[in-house]
């Protein structure tokens, strides 16, 4: 009995060490996309390469096909945990060569309206850069910031703010 309990504690300790270790790793600088060196972008920074032409005003727009990507406060980094959502969009876009995607950048309610417009645009552009790195033609990706003007959650707490700091995908044909 005594030795079995000892073995259990050792196992718990090992699991805890692994969890703590991987937790710390996520905090290292440069993980996530948008701020540090962006892996997989072949040296391409956000901010390099101009935007193409906006889609026609009469273009058909389809929202809600893909999950929103969420961001940390005052940050335009695509978190590691959010990457798969962008990868799903890239895969979807690659199935066809026509049309494209509008990446909408949004912010929480805190801070100046104008700064949030620019921050939302940076979030959209961070997602755009990752889509590009996954092989999506840059000309098919438009960015549109709504700043803090279109919240999806109307509370005044972190739970709502976290839902509002997001990038959404709207497909256009």
């Amino acid at each position: 009995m005594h030795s079995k309990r000892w073995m259990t504690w050792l196992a718990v300790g090992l699991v805890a060490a692994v969890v703590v270790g991987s937790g710390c790793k996520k905090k290292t600088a440069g993980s996530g996309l948008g701020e540090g060196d962006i892996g997989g972008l072949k040296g391409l920074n956000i901010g390099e390469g101009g935007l193409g032409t906006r889609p026609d005003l009469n273009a058909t727009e389809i929202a809600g096909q893909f999950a929103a990507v969420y961001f940390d406060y005052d940050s335009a980094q695509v978190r590691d945990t959010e990457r798969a959502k962008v990868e799903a969009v890239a895969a979807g876009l690659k199935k066809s060569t026509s049309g494209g995607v509008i990446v909408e950048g949004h912010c929480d309610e805190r801070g100046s309206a104008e700064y949030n417009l620019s921050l939302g645009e940076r979030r959209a552009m961070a997602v755009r850069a990752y889509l590009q790195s996954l092989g999506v033609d840059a000309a098919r990706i438009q960015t549109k910031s709504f700043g803090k003007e279109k919240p999806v959650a109307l509370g005044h707490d972190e739970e709502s703010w976290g839902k509002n700091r997001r990038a959404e995908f709207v497909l256009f044909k």
Partner: protein
Amino acid sequence: MRENFQSLENPVFGFPMLGTLKGLMTRKILLMVLALGLCGAQAQVRVVKGGATKAGIDWSRLVASGAAPSEFKRVLEDDLIRSGWFTPAAPGAEFSLVGTAQESGQLTAQIQLFSASQQRWLLSKQYTVAGTAARSLAHRVADDILAAIGRKGMFSGRIVMVGTRSGAKELYVCDMDGGNLQQITSDRSICLAPRWSPDGQRITYTSYLKRWPDVYLIDLASRSRRVLASYSGLNSGGAISPDGSLVALALSKDGSPNLYVRGLGGGAPVRLTTETRAAIASPSWSPDGSHIVYTSDQASTAHPQLYMISRSGGAPKRLTTRGSQNVAPNWGANGLIAYASLLGKFQICVLDPNTLDSKMVSPGDGASYEDPCWAPDGRHIVCSRTQNYRSTIYLLDTLGDPPVAFAQLSGDWYSPSVTAK
């Protein structure tokens, strides 16, 4: 950083002010104690009388008869109190306002201002306007009275701001006391960040009228509108230079939000900042048009701070270090930059770009003060004040009088901009 503002020539820094950063804590406690004894935010900001020097004025011998003349007199008295330079007084005061206001088809006002210490008339003028123009005449006379005592007025100014009372964010204009409110846009979209042109005839703003964030220019007299910037990505900013020839814009067309300058009439935008990993926003011109102040989160902290750059580009200079966020700069004709600083709540601060000395001018009363814009008198600042998630427009006094609400406005109001004159 130094806390000594006495060396500055600008009068704004020459007076003991409500809430320097150093004095913030004691002021906060004082205001909290006052607030405990009062009911409601209105009373809280009106009862406390600040330390700015005032002269007594006796207006008992300004006689108004009839509806329009009475309105004229009431608005004039409110303006004179709101100017911060006067306090109502009994006969024998330093200043006496004497005259008549009468209506007979037109509104005629005979106005004289007497100084007891100088033993002479400082103003003697007759005004005749349409009977419907009582308010605007009162504002004009208030500014003439201020000029007669050697002070700059602000009551001929106009405010443009964002209002939500229609259900959408639209632009509205009003007088410096909140009166004469008019809705300017009916875009049924999202209107943001309005700014006056230097001549006060036109307004720039960002709107999603055509589904994308574009910058528009409205001519107020004709209500005609044209697009100033509709490049791919984000178009915002839209600050017209003091000489009226250029417009400063925040554009993302080249891949990241950066600061650009372009001729107001057209031409290719010239990029001033070269950030690839920053959110740049909120341009405002220096009074001589040589520099632009703006917000950027380019520093490693990734929180927005104020920077200034020459209108021909070059290396930007960082202006702020205190406060986790410093946003929404407005460079006044007095040379000082008003901005919102996140110090727990957002507070309005004033910064001298030459010395980088700054001080807080909002009261630290638990509300959030944002989006400042200098009034034409160079003493007051118009801003938004948010408490309990309701936002309205307030007049702040940099010489220490308590903030005044634009009380007659119902609904939520944001982003005020004031004309230069």
